[in-house]
């Protein structure tokens, strides 16, 4: 096995025992990027020189015994909507094509503090809007399992990079499924933590009340390690919650006996691809055999989750993206007649179609006369969805179901049908609306040899239970050993 194929915890051991150096490892992964990224297209920016320099510095620390981090020397990459000081942060948009932040996102800082090595910035749907990476201004990231298919999105680059061993782990962001759906499509582990568990400072906002950063990894153990590194209260983020965060590696226990698992009927009913459904039901059977108590239940108003999500997310986005006006930074149209025209031309030229569509939708939903019918109604649905989950969690320790109705679809297949694309978010958006944690682990392959991801949904701040069930599933199955052949 080659170095870049190993997990972070395996590599951590090798680094600690001086079997491999951080520089050697970083070079190996950089070579891997060089070799496959022309095909996969995970990266927008690769920072080779900075990575090698950093690897050298970190190796010195390892040699001197100055680092205790289990992630020291591990090469990783960040979705390109997380600000990195001195390194371009584009959000895959023409609008920020030239934007170099003078500050680090809190997650970037935390990962630097853990002595990880930043390899570069990953492709995504523009401003995290989309589920296929077809909305990137720069390029189409491809699914490493089948280069004619999408990697999912919006954290498509983050998932594809892990699946093709172009990074040992990555961070993505999830507003309505943007970590979990690409993790499912690319056959990797991904978690959207509880809203407020990971600082959003420096994450370029899409929808502030829904956005959350999380890791994409090769297995559940790595997921726990990275979560340990990035969770925690941040005084720079008012919505970050100030509580004691557990050591997530303590949750890596191979035992689910007596655990109560609920399966929402609405998640395995109409609209789900039969092969996906079979994989999910088989996975639930595995958990049942391991001693978990699994039963179906009804999660009400699931059908309203998508409209409520798109109203809230677009309303917030319309305000969050208003600052890109060509005045201060980023793209500015070359030709304009006056101030209003400067705004119009800049935003017309700088944003892609999907971003414009959502800005218009959100602006409309917040407009006077429509606010009550749309935005306010959506907030009411939000309350009801949260209530539905609360009731479910009074009976169950966690909820299990599919991540997406299908496996990875063909590039271009849904590109002209935004509504069809939105409906693909049916199983993921509720989790963001309620601010819950959601973990995705690989649970099978369909007949086209494409991965299926099992979604585990937990109580607020109960990532540990998700990790424990995910870990147990992993220890008792071989699905995570399936690898993309690229």
């Amino acid at each position: 096995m080659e170095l870049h194929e190993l997990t972070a915890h395996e590599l951590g051991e090798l680094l600690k025992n001086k079997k491999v150096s951080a520089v050697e490892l970083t070079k190996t992964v950089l070579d891997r990027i060089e070799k496959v990224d022309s095909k996969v297209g995970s990266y927008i920016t690769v920072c080779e020189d900075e990575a090698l320099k950093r690897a050298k510095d970190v190796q010195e620390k390892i040699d001197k015994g100055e680092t205790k981090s289990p992630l020291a020397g591990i090469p990783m990459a960040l979705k390109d909507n997380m600000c990195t000081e001195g390194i371009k942060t584009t959000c895959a948009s023409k609008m920020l094509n030239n934007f170099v932040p003078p500050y680090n996102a809190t997650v970037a800082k935390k990962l630097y503090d853990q002595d990880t090595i930043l390899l570069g910035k990953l492709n995504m749907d523009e401003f995290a809007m989309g589920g296929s990476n077809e909305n990137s201004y720069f390029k189409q990231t491809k699914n490493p399992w089948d280069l004619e298919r999408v990697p999912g999105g919006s954290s498509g680059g983050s998932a594809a990079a892990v699946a093709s061993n172009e990074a040992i782990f990555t961070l993505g962001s999830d507003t309505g499924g943007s970590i979990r759906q690409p993790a499912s499509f690319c056959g990797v582990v991904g978690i959207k933590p509880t809203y407020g568990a990971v600082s959003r400072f420096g994450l370029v906002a899409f929808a502030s009340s829904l956005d959350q950063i999380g890791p994409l990894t090769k297995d559940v153990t790595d997921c726990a390690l990275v979560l340990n590194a990035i969770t925690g209260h941040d005084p720079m983020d008012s919505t970050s919650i100030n509580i004691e965060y557990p050591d997530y590696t303590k949750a890596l226990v191979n035992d689910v006996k007596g655990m109560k698992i609920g399966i929402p009927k609405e998640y395995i009913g109409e609209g789900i691809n039969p092969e996906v459904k079979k994989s999910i039901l088989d996975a639930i059977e595995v958990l049942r055999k391991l001693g978990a108590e699994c039963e179906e239940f009804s999660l009400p108003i699931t059908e309203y989750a998508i409209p409520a999500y798109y109203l809230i997310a677009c309303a917030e986005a319309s305000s969050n993206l208003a600052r890109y006006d060509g005045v201060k930074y980023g793209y500015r149209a070359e030709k304009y007649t006056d101030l209003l025209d400067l705004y119009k031309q800049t935003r017309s030229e700088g944003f892609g179609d999907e971003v414009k569509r959502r800005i218009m939708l959100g602006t409309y939903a917040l407009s006077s006369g429509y606010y009550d019918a749309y935005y306010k109604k959506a907030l009411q649905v939000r309350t009801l969805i949260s209530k539905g989950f609360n009731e479910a969690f009074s009976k169950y320790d966690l909820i299990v179901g599919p991540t997406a109705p299908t496996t990875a679809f063909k590039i271009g297949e849904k590109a002209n049908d935004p509504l069809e694309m939105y409906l693909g978010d049916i199983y993921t958006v509720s989790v963001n609306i309620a601010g819950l944690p959601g973990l995705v682990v690989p649970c099978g392959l369909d007949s086209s040899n494409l991965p299926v991801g099992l979604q585990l949904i937990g109580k607020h701040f109960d990532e540990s239970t998700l990790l424990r069930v995910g870990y147990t599933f992993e220890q008792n199955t071989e699905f995570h050993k399936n690898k993309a052949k690229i």
Partner: protein
Amino acid sequence: MEYEIVIGLEVHSELSTKSKIYCTCTTEFGGEVNTHCCPICTGMPGVLPVLNEKVVEYAVKAGLATNCTIAEYSKQDRKNYFYPDLPKAYQTSQYDLPICKNGYIDIEVNGETKRIGLTRIHIEEDAGKLMHDEWDTGSLVDYNRCGVPLIEIVSEPDIRSAEEAKVFLENLKAILQYIDVSDCKMQEGSLRADVNLSVRPKGQKEFGTRTEMKNLNSFRGIIRAIEAETKRQIDEIESGGVIVQETRRWDDNKGISYAMRSKEEAHDYRYFPEPDLVPIVLDKEWIEKIRESLPELPEARKKRYVSEYGLPEYDAGILTSSKALSDFFEDAVSKSSNAKAVSNWIMGDLMRLLKEKNMEAEEIPFSGEYLAKMVALIDKGTISGAIAKKVFDKMFNTGKDPEVIVKEEGLEVVSDEGALVAVVTKILENNPQSVADYKSGKEKAFGFLVGQAMKETKGKASPQIINKILKEELDKM
């Protein structure tokens, strides 16, 4: 027809916190362009606001000092609009749940007390400043002021004249200065007002259509704008026209206002709850603690000056109208046993000199203690009243201790009888006619002779002693 004016004011006051509302940048006025800003207050991608707790404290203080109900639960909202001085393209403000509600301020106009209701006080952030005209190629933006905390104080439409508006603003300014939440420097823009104004035939119950005038940043400007807008609206109605609901911009140089935008063109601000901030939840006990910490307010001080020092209401009102003036009086009175004299000196000579030199009460060049000392010098008979005026002027111009001035310039009253006998003898010798007049029963001549003697001693002689010696010497003749 006789008309009644109906006015509501929206006052913006910059809070004097050290740092901005959502970041740690300084709020200091002035400063090189774009040096008091950071990625947060310039709204760069990915940054987040964190509310400055002092802003909440100051707003609550302002609410308590103006008899408002303090909300235990309030929230912040985004007010969305595009303008280059607003880097996030939304202003974080408060929409439907402001931090203070339902207050009032009492004002006194023409000897009558009137209560002006306050609808609300809410917190929000200031915008930057556009700099036009100097560059041919376009405008530049200075973000120093961006994110400086403001409170917006909204009055009920209870104001009925320019004079009432002026007194309301003066009282409000004094209150904000007393509780030390704003320096209210209008010339630096830390107190600004928008005027909502309508007119209606006297006796009519319904309000007329109102206009909103923006950009008013001096008391004089506000008065002038109200007068001009009142006239404009009445003229419009009298000539058969109708008032259009609109926003108007006041041009203080030209003394006229221009229509900016009509109701139809009004911005749709698309307010919605600010998702990057959490609701403001205040503890009852904390609010009470703030209430207890409030200093004596102008109204209470005024009453105390009347009852404790026996000052006339008018004087007490002037003294308490400005915190600096009132504090100066307090300082002097605490070191003096003659509050009335202290007040008289402030009301008279001090106010005159401030006016002459175009200075504010904050700039009084000597301490209250010096004024107390000077009053004591008069009361002890060390200097005469006439000399005291000279000492006061000198004190104002140099800031020197009055005792030092008196000593350096030899201004003490001369009460050495021997020396004064010589002076009187000389006066009597030089004015035989007056002596004769006095002897023939013309009492007036005595006063003339006293005056001559005082003149000879340059006012330093004790008038009582001069009287006594003069009488004795005349009797001898």
